[in-house]
């Protein structure tokens, strides 16, 4: 057994600080004739605990960071609602929406299109810098995160496809009474949330490696102010649509109040982002 191999279970930062000491300790224990399997278990357990702690710290940091305030909650909600939506949109009930349901569904689709366009624009702005980064051999730095995002996307896509198939072949009443169907909806929603979160984390990690021009950074500041509102609006329109399909007045009122609250702060955020962008460009041009 090579002690150095066991260090792979630990996070990189921990290895850099304590790795040499731990390897020496394991080697000392081996020299004393301690059972290798026990040492291996202890080191692996320790490594997994450190990775768990690191993940907890990272999650806590993102939750307390002003930039990510509420964003993880939004991501989870988005995934769950998309999961429920996947089941409901394909059901015969919504195949022929009527009255308010039709209006609400149009609002959902418009919100999804606008949010998608804003997110796409944000990504396209960084595309030239991303291409330069990849051509310079940057892929290994983001490969693992992109791999996790892709794996979660495949899982979410599989769940979604299953839900669509099941929704199309069973009557709504039968689906509503099936715990397996709702478990599938929940799991698909969580997989979607995981995919969205992992891609967001991959994008954030990739952005750290990109060299963006002041003009692009200024534009991204504005889009960064718009995107959270767009996502929130999309979620609220989903809630509105749902309240229309369920004839729930309480949910309708709550969603409308949320929509008003979310919209109220947006102009101020955009104005501040524009001012920061101008300052950024001025500083870059030396004025």
């Amino acid at each position, binding site marked *: 057994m090579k002690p150095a191999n066991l260090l792979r279970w630990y996070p990189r930062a921990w290895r850099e600080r304590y790795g*040499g000491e731990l390897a020496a300790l394991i080697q000392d224990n081996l020299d004393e004739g301690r059972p290798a399997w026990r040492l291996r278990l*202890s080191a692996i357990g320790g490594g997994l*605990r450190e990775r768990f702690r690191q993940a907890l710290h990272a999650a806590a940091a993102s939750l307390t960071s002003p930039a990510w305030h509420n964003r993880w909650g939004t991501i989870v909600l988005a995934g769950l609602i998309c999961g429920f939506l996947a089941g409901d949109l394909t059901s015969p009930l919504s195949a022929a929406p009527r009255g308010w349901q039709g209006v609400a569904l149009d609002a959902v689709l418009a919100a999804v299109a606008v949010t998608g366009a804003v997110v796409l624009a944000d990504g396209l702005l960084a595309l030239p810098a991303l291409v330069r980064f990849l051509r310079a051999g940057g892929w290994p730095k983001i490969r693992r995160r992109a791999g996790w995002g892709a794996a979660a996307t495949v899982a979410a896509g599989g769940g979604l496809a299953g839900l669509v198939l099941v929704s199309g072949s069973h009557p709504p009443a039968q689906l509503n009474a099936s715990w397996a169907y709702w478990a599938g909806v929940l799991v698909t929603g969580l997989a979607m949330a995981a995919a969205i979160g992992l891609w967001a984390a991959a994008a954030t990690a990739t952005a750290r490696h990109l060299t963006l021009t002041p003009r692009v950074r200024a534009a991204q500041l504005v889009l960064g102010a718009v995107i959270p509102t767009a996502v929130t609006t999309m979620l609220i329109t989903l809630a509105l649509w749902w309240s229309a399909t369920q004839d729930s007045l309480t949910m309708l009122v709550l969603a409308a109040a949320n929509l008003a609250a979310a919209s109220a702060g947006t102009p101020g955020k955009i104005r501040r982002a524009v001012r920061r962008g101008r300052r950024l460009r001025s500083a870059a041009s030396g004025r």
Partner: protein
Amino acid sequence: MSPSGLRRPNDPPLLILVSLADGPKHGHALAKDIEDFAGVRLGPGALYGAITRLAERGLIEPFGSDDDRRRPYRITPPGSAALAAALADMRRVTRAGLARLGLDPA
């Protein structure tokens, strides 16, 4: 949990602080000492997990050494204070337990 994070007599952080109370030691010497005085055999993962927590809380610190692979640690003043407080708590509980059992007339 106490503010210092020290809970039970067989908690690895508490055992490490007790071991370091009489002078700096590196990982292997710590494990041997703990096994001798407490009869607890700490695996490398548990030992370095506890060292990491204690160092993060400033209760122990690395002590100068040319050999980075066998770096000694020493207890810091806050570490000594936390250890003293934890041991005082344990002594209070121990005394109460012994008195109630009629084993400690004091």
